[in-house]
């Protein structure tokens, strides 16, 4: 609890009383939590408990789904993002996202990385090249792809593709990167690489990661939030959650008694 209190001043995202409905069905109930700058926050919980839904609320990707209703407040650096006046394009530029299944565009590696910059209107070839290299280095992919920058991204391996997606997300220099089960479709070796990468990235970015893998959450995250059936059950420093959780429920889940 102490870490949280300390970090309160550096909170980058503040969620207050968040309720999300899919049509008639409520998926998220009264969730409030704060995400600390430059830390890795893990969302854990059984399938269907609303982790992805909350994640998507943070960059308003829920807007793409029909009949979604989001109530409550989400503040990014003190600015409310859950209202119609928000520039979602700018928001999404500041809150990047990596998906469960890697989804590079059917373009070259290079074009994938610079996509966000191009659509933001950056034209200078030199600047694009520089940022592409920087992003690929940050995503620990540069050495593997530097000779095939202009080959199709669909020719990469699964793990490489996912790292390419991360590079693509960080190329637009977001504050926050949302990762929705980024390793669930990868083999253990690629998973390790991504986990290492997350450790690196936390120096520069705030990361929220949804995972089903308890060890992964324990390994990579600073804070952990445990959800169950749309409610936030427990939120705290990862160490504490995994060693002495306050809620029985959390303990049961972590020790694998259900889920």
């Amino acid at each position: 609890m102490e870490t949280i209190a300390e970090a309160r001043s550096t909170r980058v995202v503040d969620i207050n009383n968040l309720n999300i409905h899919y049509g008639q069905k409520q998926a998220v109930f009264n969730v409030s939590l704060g995400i600390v700058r430059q830390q890795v926050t893990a969302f854990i919980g059984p399938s269907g408990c609303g982790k992805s839904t909350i994640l998507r609320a943070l960059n308003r990707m829920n807007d793409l789904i029909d009949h979604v209703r989001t109530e409550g407040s989400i503040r990014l650096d003190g600015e409310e993002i859950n209202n119609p006046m928000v520039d979602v394009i700018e928001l999404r530029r500041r809150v990047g996202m990596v998906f469960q299944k890697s989804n590079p565009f059917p373009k070259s590696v290079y074009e994938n990385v610079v996509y966000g910059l191009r659509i933001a209107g950056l034209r200078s070839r030199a600047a694009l090249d520089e940022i592409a290299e920087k992003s690929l280095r940050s995503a620990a992919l540069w050495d593997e792809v530097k000779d095939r920058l202009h080959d199709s991204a669909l020719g990469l391996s699964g793990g490489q593709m996912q790292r390419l997606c991360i590079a693509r997300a960080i190329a637009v220099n977001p504050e926050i990167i949302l990762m929705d089960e980024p390793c669930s479709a990868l083999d253990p070796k690629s998973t390790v690489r991504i986990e290492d990468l997350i450790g690196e990235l936390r120096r520069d970015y705030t990361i929220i990661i949804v995972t089903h893998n308890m060890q992964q959450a324990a390994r990579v995250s600073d804070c952990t939030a445990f959800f169950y059936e749309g409610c936030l059950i427990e939120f705290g420093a990862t160490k504490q959650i995994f060693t002495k959780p306050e809620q029985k429920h959390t303990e049961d889940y972590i020790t694998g008694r259900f889920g």
Partner: protein
Amino acid sequence: MSSRSTRRILDRAFTGLGGFSTLLLAAALLVILVPILIKGFGAFVFRETVEHRRMLLDLYETGDRAAVETEVAAAAKAREPVYAMLGAFKKEVEALPAPERRKLKSDCKDLEKALNSLLGPAPGTTQPILLRQRYGQNRWDRAQVAIGKVLYEEAYDYSDSSQMGKKILVPRVERFRGTSLEPLFDYVRDQSKAMLLPRWIFYGGFLTHTSRDAHFFGGIRAEVLGTFYLTLGAMLFAVPMGVIAAIYLVEYARDNWLNSLIRSCVSTLAGVPSIVFGLFGLAFFINTIHVSGSKSVLAGSLTLGLLILPTLIRASEEALRAVPHTYKQAALSLGASPWKSITTVILPAALPGILTGIVISMGRAAGETAPIIFTAAVSVGQPLTLLKTLTQPTPALSWNIYNLCTEHEAVDEIRHVQYGMVFTLVLLVLLLNLSAIVIRARLSRKLRV
């Protein structure tokens, strides 16, 4: 035990039935394509006679003048005995008694006609007015028919009174037995090659030469060009509309009554018979909004464009729907606006599919006849310049195939042109489809990587 083998045999029989019908399908395709391709090939590759070379030189100024002239001279030399015999015969006839003379004279007229058709006008006679009578047979295959006409005449056998007269061939030489013309027939039969100098050629001009004298000579330039303009115009009009409509239907349209109405309209449009499109083009584009005074390439293109619109919309819709949803998500999460995500990610990803649709509907537009009958097509016409397409009608491959094999004055004599046109059209359409198949194969390979 038996019921099991019965079932197995039934199963085999069933498989056999399926295989048989598939074979029949392939057989149907072969039966239709093979004659068209083989005979159509004959419009390009055939044995041309010296008359053809002379014609090309006169009318299209292609060929080596000196070489052709020596050949013409050689052929003329070979023909000399024919005309000499004719001259001798004519003198001989004058000496005969009147009834016999009259009969032989009229027989000789028939013979001369047949000879003119084979060899062209006799030396020293006046130039005929009709272009087609100024040259002998251009093609060796036609020349052989003409030789047959010189050697034999058609007669009808009425010996069996219960039936219609049967056509039989009578050697013409019988009429001239004992005259100085008697050796002419053997000479024509034996020396035909020397008189016509047949030689294999590839006649590429069939595509680029304008036809002369209602397709008796030359190629199909005007038709090819007309089909090109009509197809191009239709695509210019239909492709943007079709792709935009598909984008709307896939990316923007919600499930409401308006959009389901639009969808129904598109499928109704797909079912409208092509001749009705033609009538509509006449009633609307020409008679109502007067895009042109009467038939024009423009009106035809618009009509054809309308015809292929539903095909295009459907193909593009399918291609757009096949693009994984995740591409759009990724683009949006990188800060792309919905429209940007469509133009930069979804459309490029759907492009091969859309291209396939475009290419296939291009083939459709090129081959359709009914819609252009009342809106754009004429039987005879010159190749158009681009500007004239706005106001002028044009010949087109599809229409002129119909026209040449039903309404032409000498249907049988220009079979090779008809086959050549069908060949060109079919090949064009099949090549377009082939490229569609290639595009699709590329696409599926790319997706598999």
